[in-house]
């Protein structure tokens, strides 16, 4: 399924997400036609169970979709929608029609049958009609919430992608179901980290291609700058980190069922986020002044790299969580933890 998915979305994104089209979305307007094309492709329902009208695909199948969404800077909450519909399906709920976003953090709680609390920086939270969240407390629930019922604080990340803070006060969910037994309450944070890691990996493939291409064309001191050892070595480092991000994501998406392997997902966000900063810096250094202009499309990728690395937990945040688990497990458990893909108790391993 992977290859079919990849070639389909690559054609789709190449068609609808040109640099000009991406740039046009930076004023915050919702690209309805672009979304309609994506919706028609069926990918928003990729991970929803077949029994509920989805494609029943696995995370491994959609790794390429996420990477390509990053590579083409697709200005849509497609990764969020795939993730939201996956969790709805896992909880036995029907997928939502249209774009759905996710709440990765904050403090939503269910009191009686109503949800209250703050959902900070929700991707396209001011545009999508619905968001999926997991409520806090001892019996976490998967809830589908209408955004029109929330007070909204407008915002945008460094790439001008909408990030809206939603304030819910006694809002009735459109649908709700208990979080599957054994799943952690931070499943949407972890899932968000996983898809952002893949988008970063895709964006890095893009900037690597741009840097390599530019270094071969741009002439300084009478020869292409790509023939200077200092430029070659910088591009090599960019390639190394892009490769690490790709590998970490591929491993994280590779679980055989539809669950997320926690260590791999965390490692993916850490490695990808670190690669994002290194890669964006090198890409700009190689491109020089031209890459710093609004006209050149390099910044469509680098501004996303600078944003995505911080979203759904930065490299530091996840590293600290992982580091605490590693230290708590102790030195003897370290290497077995690496080979087994887990630290600590089994319950913490999956999302």
């Amino acid at each position, binding site marked *: 399924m992977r290859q079919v998915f990849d070639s389909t979305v690559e054609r789709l994104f190449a068609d609808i997400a040109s640099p000009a089209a991406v740039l046009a979305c930076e004023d*915050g307007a919702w690209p309805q036609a672009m979304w309609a094309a994506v919706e028609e492709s069926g990918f928003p329902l990729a991970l929803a169970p077949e029994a509920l009208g989805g494609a029943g695909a696995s995370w491994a199948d959609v790794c390429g979709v996420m990477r390509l969404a990053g590579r083409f800077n697709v200005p849509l909450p497609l990764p969020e929608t795939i993730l939201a519909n996956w969790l709805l399906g896992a909880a036995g709920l029907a997928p939502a029609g249209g774009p759905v976003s996710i709440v990765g953090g904050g403090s939503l709680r269910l009191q009686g049958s109503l949800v209250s609390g703050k959902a900070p*920086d929700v991707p396209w939270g001011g545009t999508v009609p619905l968001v999926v969240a997991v409520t806090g407390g001892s019996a976490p629930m998967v809830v589908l919430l209408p955004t029109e019922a929330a007070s909204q*604080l*407008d*915002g*945008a*990340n*460094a790439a*001008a992608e909408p*990030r*809206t*803070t939603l304030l819910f006060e006694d809002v009735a969910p459109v649908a709700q179901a208990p979080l599957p037994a054994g799943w952690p309450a931070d499943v949407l944070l972890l899932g968000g980290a996983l898809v952002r890691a893949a988008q970063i990996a895709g964006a890095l493939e893009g900037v690597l291609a741009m840097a390599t291409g530019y270094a071969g064309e741009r*002439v*300084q*001191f009478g020869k292409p700058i790509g023939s*200077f050892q*200092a*430029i070659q070595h910088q591009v090599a480092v960019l390639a190394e980190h892009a490769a690490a991000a790709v590998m970490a994501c591929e491993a994280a998406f590779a679980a055989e069922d539809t669950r997320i392997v926690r260590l791999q997902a965390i490692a993916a966000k850490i490695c990808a986020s670190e690669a994002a*900063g290194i890669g*964006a*810096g090198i890409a*700009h*250094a190689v491109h*020089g*002044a031209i*890459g*710093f*202009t*609004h*006209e050149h499309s*390099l*910044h469509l990728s*680098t*501004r996303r790299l*600078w*944003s995505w*690395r*911080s*979203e759904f*937990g*930065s*490299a*530091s*945040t996840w590293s*600290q969580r992982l580091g605490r688990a590693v230290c708590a497990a102790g030195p003897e458990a370290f290497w077995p933890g690496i080979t087994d893909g887990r630290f600590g108790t089994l319950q913490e391993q999956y999302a």
Partner: protein
Amino acid sequence: MSIDQFTYSPLPPEAEAIRGAVRGFLAEAMADIAPARRAESWMGFDAAFSRRLGERGWIGMALPKRYGGAEASPFARYVVVEELLAAGAPVSAHWFADRQSGPQILHYGSDAQKDFHLPAICRGEQFFCIGMSEPNSGSDLASIRTSARRDGGRWIVNGQKVWTTNAQRSHYMIALVRTDPDSKRNDGLSQFIIDLSLPGITIRPIKDLTGATHFNEVFFDDVVLDAGALIGTEGCGWAQVTAELAFERSGPERFLSSIALLQSLIGAVGAEPDALQARDIGRLAARLATLRQMSLAVTAHLAAGRNPAWEASVVKELGTTFEQEIPELAEALLDVAPATRGGSEHARVLAYLMQEAPSFSLRGGTREILRGIIARGLGMR
């Protein structure tokens, strides 16, 4: 070239004495300016603000009194400049005139040029830009092709400059152009003071990735200059330009560009940092204190009439690294994503400087150029 040139060079008391007045002025004049605006550092443009500084005698301070200067030491200017930068004051309008054009006109200019330009510079009324890069000569300035051709007593300029900061808001450009069409590389280049209101000049702002317009393309189409526009000696433009590089590369603007973010980070972290936050903030404070001493050491060499170009390259390279590290560390120390709309003030300062930081190692000599200079100064080639 030796690292032993970095000797302790404290600010003399008479320079230090100015600091209080500058801080007092800034506390009043900057009271309503938000951190996100201060983050523009020396790219912030405010002509009225520059005139206010001019009134106080804080532009062209080192110039002779007869031209409106204060004949102050480079250290006095240093105190004023570092206080302006630390506060994030909008100094861009007069920046290049104060740092480069004024001193260069004093050094190489004719009496007429001095009389005409220097007093207006000191008043904060004449703004300059520096025309160096061209489309096919970014770091490779020796490949400049914009030409000035003699035509009787006049010069006819044709060609194009690019990445010229502030051209659209400046009165004059000091441009490096080729006056000998048969010359190669560094030879046959000369400098001109070009009135940007002349016919034949087209200035086209270039939007940067944040949407701001600091850079410009400047086109010259048979622009006619008087003989008096040449500054210094015909054919010596390269030497004149390189002589000022130490001034351009060693000032506090080479390590204070991200100071607004460092300050806002300290505030966002709060009074009780964790071990990671304390380590990285303490490290940055130590490095800043040291960079400032290095910059002062170069200033002392300049004040003594030496040309510490190598030492200045060291300052700029380390300073640029410091400036570029700050957004990276700010990202690592708090779980705050950069924000271009909404979000906290800190998130917006973070977004602005994260996006601007790549330019710090492009302007004033790229990292590759500077490391090459440093290595050659050590005898490697």
